[in-house]
């Protein structure tokens, strides 16, 4: 393992310290927790937005704390959900009287910890509601599985629910809009190499030099197929096809596109993938309203990318365009 760290057991604490030092005017650390909160929180009569999850997905989740986005993000250990006691502190810190909305990615651990925190919050008289993001089409849903994973599409939920809350919408309205995003967002990823969890010290999985794993999860958990690596165009075509099959986008639909790097893929390659994705959408007569290329939801130093399509209506376009100011998502 070759990493710029001090101590594998202290990576999260050390990261939080450095993060706050980088944005001292915008955020603060909740005392004795790994939660990052907007400096002026709570905002009276605004729904407070809390997200979070394991560390190792930077800029998620702290990078999305800011005006028009999240009010707080709680970091768990690497690839491990934050604990209920930390989440409840964040919920309390952002409760301005209009309730608190939780954005959760669909992983068993995240759901369990957020649910426990929500129960604790309700016991303290704070109104809480939530949305579970499950945008990854790689994993089929069935009554027997835990459902689809939540991956990069979560960033669109942060942005749009954040904009809705900033407008002063009620907890119910924020939830409704967030659910609309979840219903219309689909993603899929590919990995060319493994990540190494600091505390584990060795790669999470092995991939041969000429192999790629299609449908990889953001924790390095296996995808659906391992095969010979293809060209950027092949990869873009395969991911796009899978997502379109699921999302049923048709001619003249408007979409937002995100090509997300998983931690160690150069922007050059992300743009190459994006070029092909746009071409394929144009062929189908699907209108690209806005495009995001970069690192939004990473998986430590995994090489690879994910592609996300969000089908937009008038409301979602307006909220996507709304002003936001967070380290990882500035819009005007």
């Amino acid at each position, binding site marked *: 393992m070759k990493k710029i760290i001090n101590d594998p*057991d202290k990576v999260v604490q050390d990261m939080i310290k450095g993060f706050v030092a980088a944005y001292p005017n915008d955020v603060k650390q909740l005392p004795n927790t790994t939660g990052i909160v907007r400096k002026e929180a709570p905002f009276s009569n605004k729904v407070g937005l809390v997200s979070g999850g*394991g560390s190792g997905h930077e800029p998620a989740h702290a990078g999305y704390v800011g005006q028009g986005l999240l009010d707080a993000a709680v970091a*768990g*250990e*690497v*690839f*491990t*959900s*934050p*604990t*209920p*006691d*930390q989440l409840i502190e964040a919920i309390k810190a952002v409760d301005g009287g209009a309730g608190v909305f939780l954005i959760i990615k669909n*992983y*068993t*651990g995240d759901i*369990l*910890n957020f*649910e*426990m925190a929500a129960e604790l919050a309700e016991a303290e008289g704070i109104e809480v509601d939530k949305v579970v993001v499950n945008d990854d089409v790689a*994993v089929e849903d069935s009554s*027997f*599985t*835990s459902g689809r*994973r939540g991956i990069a599409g979560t960033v669109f939920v942060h942005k749009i629910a954040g904009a809705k809350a900033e407008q002063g919408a009620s907890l119910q309205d924020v939830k409704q809009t967030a659910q609309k995003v979840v219903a219309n967002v689909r993603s899929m990823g590919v990995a060319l190499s493994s990540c190494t*969890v600091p*505390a*584990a010290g*060795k790669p999470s999985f092995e991939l041969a030099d000429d192999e790629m794993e299609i449908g990889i*999860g953001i*924790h390095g*958990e*296996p995808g659906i197929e391992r095969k010979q690596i293809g060209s950027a165009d092949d990869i873009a075509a395969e991911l796009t096809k899978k997502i379109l099959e699921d999302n049923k986008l048709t001619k003249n639909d408007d979409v937002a596109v995100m090509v997300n790097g998983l931690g160690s893929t150069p922007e050059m390659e992300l743009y190459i993938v994006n070029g092909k994705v746009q071409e394929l959408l144009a062929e189908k007569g699907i209108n690209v309203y806005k495009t995001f290329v970069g690192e939004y939801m990473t998986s430590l130093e995994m090489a690879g990318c994910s592609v996300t399509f969000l089908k937009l209506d008038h409301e979602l376009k307006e909220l996507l365009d709304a002003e936001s100011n967070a380290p990882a998502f500035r819009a005007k």
Partner: protein
Amino acid sequence: MDKTNTKIQENKEYLTTLDQAIGDGDHGINISRGFQEVMNKVSGQAYEHVADVMKDVAMTLMSKVGGAAGPLYGTAFLKLSMTFKGQDVDYALFSQGIEDALNGVKQRGKSDTGEKTLVDVWSAVSERLKQEEKFDGSVLEETARTAMENTKDTLATKGRAAYLKERSIGHLDPGSVSSFYLFEAFAEVINEGE
């Protein structure tokens, strides 16, 4: 108090074993961190009731482990604490405690037996305890071990391993393994006490 002390000493040893067995996955890292924190919390403290130890264990696991294991193990120990509250723990109460813990874990994780999770081990142990009338460490250990080993051939339908589908067959469920260590340690305590 002697019993508690013994338990804690056993915990220390089985923790090391646990980490060696599955220490490279995130479950191993999280659960060993959690139990290390448990050690820090309960060792050297004087407890009047077993229930109080269980409560401290529950709260520590919940706040230090994260992932799915934190809430699940936290819930299990919290239920034990609630069942044992204010009482001396005899066989019947212990058996009841395990059943309550099992139900708590099932409810929290929305899972059931046969889904390749720690529930498989807890439910096998609970069933067996109901059939017996007194503590028998080797029966306890054997039951937990068999249930753990059975998860190897099961198709995962819950938890993160569910994403692997067919590829989950042939691998032991880590939650079952850590649960086995827990019962194994407990069985050792019982055997030593005899």
